């Protein structure tokens, strides 16, 4: 891809700057989107490597490869890196690339802030990963960092962890403000709210969730910082503080956070399924309302993560009912996707395969979520591998398959070339089999009674743990194939037309492939 000199208006339009400073100083939404996506993939491989360490240790009972203190650092860092470093930045990257092109805007509304919010991320994660090499090791208290394990009992590096979370949080808040400002202000004439593509809608709602809850996360880590260094006792019972308050504040952030990781995937899948079913999305309006309803409910269910902490009966009942209620709008979405496919004219290219797997496997994760919502049954499920199975089913074939589907769907637009369909389908099937092999047996070992976050276990859990590890290695190795497919696609391949998918809809398909460095300098007219 040589620098593109814009073929019209050569007097004011220009291509990217030359040399590495292009990437440091860029304010172009496509450059920043690409950097977000590459950063996210690097973090995905790093967090994945840590998952491989975890699964290798759990391959057999007994302690084989790593000491328990290092094992705890691996589970903690795997969670933190995947949530804050891989999934969230991937969706911000997709938003950067696609939202301006979907609404007919020339760029993001706040391009300089956009650059800053990206460049905070390498700083945040450089800091976070560096704690592994510090005296006493990195964070070892789980990605949920419950106090007082993360305060009084934490390794000294916890201060760096707190600072890293602050940086990543500032980055997310700025990214979210930018997305809201772009969607509210820069839509092309005629693009009313209810004409916006669903990816734009779900991201708008996600951005509001981010703005609402990232400050809460910043607050809770600041309180930890005060407890550790400034003699306060927010979470220390010995000083009159309250360790349960930590969990309330954390999950007030944490539950909306899980929807932050899944709503943009809902949006992307809602665009991909109609494209390959060659049929309009069923129930566009109800999709928008269902997303808003899920976002609203996500603020009133946080204590379902805390059914065993001893909240009063009435509280327990409230959070059980509210959680069950989320199944209704989520069900509406699933039914809409299935109805979109019903009586369509289906083809099964890689984006569609990932999207279909998304619907099926996310629904299975939703089912186990429904089971977990039943408070009395949750006393048996809570903090076992059943929970690990549940959230990996909503996050891996949910968020991550959503990202893969999006990447394959829009790669031709980004690179100007078609990716290798055979390799992409191989990537899909290996990921599909590996992922189910890794995570489905976790339901069984959880129900049989294996707690999460333990490096060693009784022999009665051995068989399924071994199956799970084999699946995890398969899933992990397969992701290198994805890297190869993307690089191959950037370097060449069959030329992609402006609209390579015959059922695809939207403004992004009206510009050439690859998308020129500047698109929609003059807003298009939307009918």
């Amino acid at each position, binding site marked *: 891809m040589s620098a593109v000199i814009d073929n019209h208006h050569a007097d004011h339009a220009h291509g990217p700057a030359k040399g590495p400073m292009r990437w440091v100083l860029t304010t172009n939404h496509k450059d920043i989107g690409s950097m977000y996506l590459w950063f996210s993939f690097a973090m995905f491989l790093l967090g994945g490597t840590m998952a491989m360490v975890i699964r290798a240790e759990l391959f057999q009972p007994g302690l084989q490869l790593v000491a328990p203190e290092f094992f705890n650092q691996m589970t903690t860092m795997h969670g933190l890196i995947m949530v804050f470093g891989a999934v969230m930045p991937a969706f911000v990257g997709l938003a950067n690339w696609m939202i301006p092109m979907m609404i007919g805007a020339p760029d993001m509304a706040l391009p300089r802030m956009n650059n800053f919010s990206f460049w905070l991320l390498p700083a945040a994660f450089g800091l976070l990963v560096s704690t592994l090499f510090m005296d006493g090791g990195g964070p070892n208290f789980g990605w949920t960092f419950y106090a*007082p394990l993360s305060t009084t009992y934490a390794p000294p590096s916890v201060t760096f962890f707190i600072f890293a979370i602050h940086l990543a949080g500032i980055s997310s808040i700025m990214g979210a403000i930018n997305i809201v400002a772009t969607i509210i202000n820069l839509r092309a004439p005629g693009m009313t709210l209810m004409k916006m593509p669903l990816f734009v809608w779900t991201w708008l709602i996600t951005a509001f969730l981010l703005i609402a809850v990232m400050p809460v996360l910043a607050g809770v880590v600041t309180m930890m910082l005060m407890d550790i260094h400034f003699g306060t006792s927010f979470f220390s*019972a010995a000083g009159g503080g309250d360790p349960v308050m930590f969990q309330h504040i954390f999950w007030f952030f944490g539950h909306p956070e899980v929807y932050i990781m899944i709503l943009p995937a809902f949006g992307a899948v809602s665009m991909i399924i109609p494209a390959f079913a060659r049929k309009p999305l069923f129930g566009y309006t109800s999709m928008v309302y269902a997303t808003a309803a899920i976002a609203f409910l996500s603020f009133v269910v946080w204590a379902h993560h805390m059914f065993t902490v001893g909240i009063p009966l009435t509280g327990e009942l409230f959070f059980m009912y509210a959680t069950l209620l989320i199944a209704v709008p989520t069900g509406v979405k699933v039914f809409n996707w299935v109805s979109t496919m019903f009586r369509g004219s*289906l083809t099964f290219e890689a984006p569609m395969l990932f999207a279909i797997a998304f619907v099926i496997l996310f629904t299975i994760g939703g089912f186990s979520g429904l089971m977990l919502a039943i408070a*009395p049954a949750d006393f048996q499920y*809570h903090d076992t591998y059943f929970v690990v199975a549940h959230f990996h089913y909503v996050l891996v074939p949910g968020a991550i398959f959503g990202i893969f589907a999006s990447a394959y769907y829009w790669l031709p637009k980004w690179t100007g070339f078609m990716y290798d369909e055979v390799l992409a389908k191989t990537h899909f099937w290996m990921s599909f089999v590996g992922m189910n092999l890794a995570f489905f047996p976790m339901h069984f070992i959880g*129900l049989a009674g294996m707690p999460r976050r333990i490096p060693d276990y009784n022999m009665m859990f051995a068989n399924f743990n071994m199956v799970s590890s084999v699946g995890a290695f398969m899933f992990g190795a397969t992701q290198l194939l994805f890297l190869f497919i993307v690089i191959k696609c950037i370097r060449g391949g069959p030329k992609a037309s402006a609209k390579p998918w015959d059922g695809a809809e939207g403004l992004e398909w009206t510009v050439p492939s690859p998308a020129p460095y500047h698109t929609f300098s003059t807003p298009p007219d939307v009918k």
Partner: protein
Amino acid sequence: MLRYASAWLGGLSLSVLSSTASAEWTINMTKGVTEVSHSVFNLHMTIFWICVAIGVIVFGVMFWSMFMHRKSRGAVPAKFHENLSVEILWTVVPLIILIGMAVPATKTLIDIYDADESDVDVLVTGYQWRWQYSYLGEDVNFFSNMATSRDEISNAAEKGPNYLLEVDEPLVIPIGQKVRFLITSADVIHSWWVPALAVKKDAIPGFINEAWTRVEEPGIYRGQCTELCGREHAFMPVVVEAKTQEDYAIWLAEKKELAAREAELKDKDWTLEELMERGERVYASACASCHQPNGEGVPPMFPALKGSDMVLNDVAGHISIVVNGSPGTAMPAFGRQLSEVDLAAVITYERNAWENNTGEMVSPLDILEFNEGQ
């Protein structure tokens, strides 16, 4: 390369074969041995079958479309994109199913929360990394440590059938009686779980949580700590032994007698050897998980005792830190956990083990004097 791979695969199939002998392919939750655990199991199965039914319908339609409505079969796409009555139907029907599910769940939950009118009360306290059981009003109080050896964990010895799920002293409860657990923690958050009783409650410093059970059958029921509590989280099992009421009464009487004899020990004249011998046992159960069996600790979180300045030169400081703990660090106040005899023994042990060789002895009387002085 291929040779390594096949050797690895061979090893894999061997270990699969050898492990199937003892391991199981358990796929479901235990029914348990109490009325509550039975109703929890029934809730679990009900919601599971509801999910299966919904799954069959939704995925059925989906696979039907994927098979019948393929472009390669010449399917022509329909144009519809909404249908109000269908959309209302699939909002209302799930709502009704959920209400149907919430009713029995609420009943069970109300039952679980009713810990009143208990026959036996046990205070369960979590520590890094063991449990303490105190029978309220009975003067019986002991720690329960994992009994699995480090050799089994490091694969140097054959693993027993209750690997990681066995303790030196289990919690003993009578069958047929309502036993109330008051659950708390002395350091970080733990969670006390026995699957067969369907009891799981977090042990939180500064809070006392309630749970209860009424076991119908005598037996040994095993569980584990289920809240990440640090390095040895995997190694703090919960074992409950349910005895008939007669056996329970005998056990309780024995425990009380033992406690009375222990209390007399502090007036005895101790020799260095006796204290060292007792101290070694106390050290192994109370101190070794952090400061390590060899006294070298895991700095900087858990400092070394071997060659430590305080251990070698500062008796008063040593007694003080063991009795009162070190605020703001992971070092707990053992004054509330151990008897004067055990405190004296373990301090003496630390001052003389691992080439510390101070030759100094701290007697139970010294501890008593220290306690009175503060």
